[in-house]
């Protein structure tokens, strides 16, 4: 509708997400979260008369998210001086390819959804930052696999689910989540009866379920997302007479009821945010999103909104500190919230980051699906 | 009376290459016409253009009063033009019997087809011996017999033959020419391309000589077989 404003007054919010092919629906709804945050910021007015503009690039190739493409996109965004922060990517292996580049360029990058531990923690993360070891530019508003997996293990035992069969989609997110869950669940006294990974493009899960049936588990824990098999797995449990069995997963399956419908009842999943029903920001966000895009929020729309809010808040502070002039990327990085004092209040709770780039006061909530709808069960406030 | 087949100013090209230039041919009902010419003169090209296997660039082909230019090759075949093509083009993965049945594809009645197949096998007893064999494993001559037999099954009004004697033993060649004479006597019109020009002219009423894609001569068969130039070039001194 409107052409881009003259370059000097526009600040680019770079975005790298999978926008076409298999990941398109999550990618697009995530992007919409970002667009909404940018629209809100512009409507509120930006110091110095700047406007924010979303510059979104697609990191899929041939319809699949692709680290090489992600790296290339990040370079494109960095080459544009007006871009002061990057939101994305969606996938952890794409992040692994991008972090060294953003680290070298010193530009803020906030991912809404890349959960792999190694992106922020330990030796792996240090290696990713080796171009500029003293600086961390990568942040994420989602949780890590280990936080989520161990929380899920505790929830399961709270629910008196003691015998687990673990299945994952053999992709980065799902496999890591399942690994942590298996480890912590055993540590806390649960029994892991068996583990399985599924092949990509699998449509038929009955063979796997027939096998699981023989182990007589209390529940199946699934590491993966609704579309990498979670939905079908849950659905097909009914076809082999396991419809009553509990089913549990992480934040990849909140939309499972869309695929499994009523058969999703009895599913538990975790989300890295406080109970949305009690957060006014969350309610406002959901309503605004629906009004603007005419559809329900996607699984990571809120995270994306939050990530963008954090980035914008840092940029705005940097503008002010710079005398209402265009700040540098380093100045923006310096304004990223680091403690309770400058927390940003987002639809997924207040956010500030620790030195690794992870959220400081993580909260993991457990939801269950009943009558085809999600309902909040309990939440865990994890300490650092 | 209009001719059964009339070709006027036919031009055919392969990509940019001119293969036929302004060919005029007339074949009356009941005639046998021979096409002579050196390798690459355009004989095969002419036959393929008539039966619709090659697109015509310009010119007209009329058969029995109807224009064939817009017809597809299968429609032309169903109108009654049979073609024994260069290279035989039998269905190599089908048996001999199936090949013959394909020859009768346009015939509605199974009984009729079976009868005609019997007739064809009477002409080529060698094929009867090999009836359930895959056509691709036949000997060269046997394949040639099959190609001719397949075309005969449809009982075309006009039969185009591209070197029918190719690869056949002398006795069979003689026999083929007898068969041609025989079906001709029963009303089939024939256009014959044959390297064995002497035999061809002996059988034919008239002949055309093609050179470099053009008609160089046309005359009665008798006149052609006495023309010294023709004798030197095609009949071999």
């Amino acid at each position, binding site marked *: 509708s409107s052409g881009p404003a003259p370059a000097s007054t526009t600040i680019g919010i770079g975005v790298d997400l999978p926008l076409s092919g298999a990941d398109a629906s999550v990618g697009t709804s995530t992007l919409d979260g970002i667009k909404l945050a940018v629209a809100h910021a512009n409507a509120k007015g930006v110091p110095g008369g700047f406007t924010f503009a979303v510059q*979104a690039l*697609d990191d899929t*190739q041939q319809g699949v998210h692709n680290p090489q493409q992600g790296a290339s996109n990040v370079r494109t965004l960095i080459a544009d001086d007006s871009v002061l922060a990057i939101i994305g990517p969606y996938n952890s292996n794409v992040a692994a390819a991008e972090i060294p580049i953003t680290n070298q360029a010193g530009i803020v990058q906030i991912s809404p959804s890349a959960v792999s531990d190694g992106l922020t923690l330990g030796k792996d993360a240090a*290696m990713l930052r080796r171009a500029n070891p003293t600086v961390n530019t990568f942040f994420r508003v989602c949780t890590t696999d280990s936080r989520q997996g161990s929380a899920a293990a505790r929830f399961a035992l709270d629910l008196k689910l003691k015998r687990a069969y673990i299945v994952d989609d*053999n992709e980065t997110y799902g496999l890591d989540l399942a690994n942590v869950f298996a480890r912590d669940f055993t540590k806390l006294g649960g029994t892991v009866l068996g583990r399985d990974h599924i092949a990509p493009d699998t449509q038929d899960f009955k063979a796997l379920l027939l096998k699981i049936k023989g182990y007589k588990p209390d529940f199946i824990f699934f590491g993966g997302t609704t579309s990498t098999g979670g939905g079908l797995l849950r659905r097909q449990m009914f076809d082999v007479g396991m419809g009553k069995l509990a089913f549990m997963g992480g934040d990849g399956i909140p939309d499972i009821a869309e695929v499994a419908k009523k058969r999703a009842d009895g599913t538990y999943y975790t989300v890295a945010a406080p109970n949305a029903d009690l957060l006014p920001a969350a309610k406002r966000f959901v309503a605004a999103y629906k009004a603007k895009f005419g559809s329900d929020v996607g699984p990571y729309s809120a995270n994306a909104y939050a990530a963008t809010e954090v980035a914008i808040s840092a940029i705005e502070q940097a503008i002010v500190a710079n005398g209402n002039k265009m700040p540098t990327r380093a100045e923006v990085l310096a304004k990223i919230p680091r403690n309770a004092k400058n927390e940003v209040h987002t639809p997924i709770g207040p956010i500030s980051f620790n030195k690794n780039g992870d959220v400081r006061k993580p909260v993991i909530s457990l939801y269950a699906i009943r009558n085809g709808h999600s309902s909040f069960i309990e939440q865990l406030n994890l300490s650092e | 009376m209009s001719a059964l087949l009339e070709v006027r100013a036919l031009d055919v090209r392969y990509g940019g290459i001119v293969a036929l230039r302004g060919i005029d041919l007339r074949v009356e009902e009941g005639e046998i016409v021979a096409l002579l010419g050196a390798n690459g003169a355009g004989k095969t090209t002419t036959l393929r253009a008539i039966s619709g296997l090659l697109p015509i660039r310009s010119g007209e082909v009329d058969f029995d009063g109807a224009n064939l230019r817009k017809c597809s090759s299968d429609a032309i075949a169903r109108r009654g033009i049979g073609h024994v093509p260069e290279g035989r083009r039998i269905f190599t993965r089908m048996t001999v019997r199936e090949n013959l049945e394909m020859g009768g594809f346009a015939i509605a009645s199974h009984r009729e087809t079976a009868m005609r197949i019997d007739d064809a096998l009477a002409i080529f007893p060698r094929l009867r011996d090999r009836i359930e064999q895959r056509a691709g494993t036949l000997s060269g001559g046997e394949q040639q017999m099959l190609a001719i037999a397949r075309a005969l099954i449809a009982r075309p009004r006009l039969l185009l033959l591209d070197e029918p004697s190719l690869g056949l033993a002398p006795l069979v060649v003689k026999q083929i020419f007898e068969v041609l004479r025989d079906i001709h006597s029963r009303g089939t019109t024939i256009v014959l391309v044959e390297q064995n020009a002497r035999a061809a002219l002996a059988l034919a009423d008239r002949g055309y000589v093609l050179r470099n894609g053009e008609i160089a001569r046309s005359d009665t068969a008798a006149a052609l077989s006495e023309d010294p130039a023709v004798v030197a070039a095609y009949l071999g001194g």
Partner: protein
Amino acid sequence: MIYTYAFVAIAACVAIERFHNRRAKATIVLILAAFLAIAPRFYGNDAVFSVLADAAVYVMLALGLNIVVGFAGLLDLGYAAFFAIGAYTYGMLASPQFGLHLPFWVLLFLAAALAALFGALLGAPTLRLHGDYLAIVTLGFGEIVPQIFQNLTKYTGGPNGIAALDVPTFFGHSFGASVMPYYYIALVGIAAALWISRNLRESRLGRAWMAIREDELAAKHAGIDVLRSKLAAFAIGASFSGIGGVLFAAKLALVSPDLFGFQVSVLIVSMLVLGGMGNIVGVVVGSLLLTIVNSALLPQINSLVDATFHTTVDLSNLHFLIYGAILVGIMLFRPEGLLPNRERRAELHHAGEAAGDA
């Protein structure tokens, strides 16, 4: 900017095809080489050269596959497997994974050798297969290899792959985070691949491949060792992608199994066919074109449209449609490829004269 470079390269290729004079061709090649070597100092940025370096890797892959498919006529739908083998060679031997940090330059050759070995290993039992049976076996191989990398988590990092691979050095100078070294190495790689492709094509082995492609039985009757020639094709073709794999992995500093799926094999076959299979220059054009479409045009199409037409339209959910339409469109428009095989044109060129004196 990226389009400027791509345009110059493609235009030069087309010019090379048009000219029949050897000297003229050589001149264009030299000018193009000089341009590609010098222009980066004045024009472009990291993002552009990153894409160009990636494009160069794809050109190498396509040239390698061209040897197998275009020259020897062996339809290989699993070529990405060798790419994966090359990349994982670097990933496993130059990373914290096993604490091995072999030098980039050594691995470049090691990967070529390993990929060639696997090419021969795959080839040996399957070369009796004909046509599409071979295609489907190679496809199967292409599916198996990345899945094995994905499932052998202990050694390969599983689905996560291996990240933070070593940064190569050149006489003690680290490449650092710059993409330029990769760009130049890839240019040299292409030059070598082009030279070898041309050599092979005109050679005794190249003629043997042609014969096998056209009629295996007649080739045997000419005394050609069909099996050995096919193995040579597989091995040489695979070695190109082994090298490509190392470059790719080192530049990205990451390998993961989803980078080498069937889609990649299909992409490279498309590059060949689109450009003009068997024709070296055509293959280069095809691969440049598709890489630019896939890595630059489609991901940035929204910004591009916005900037050009000053409207905001969202085309990102049409990427596949656009890409598919490009493939279909080019094939319907030029079934023989954009720059078809030289022989095909030579034939049209000479036949006019020959027809006259038959």
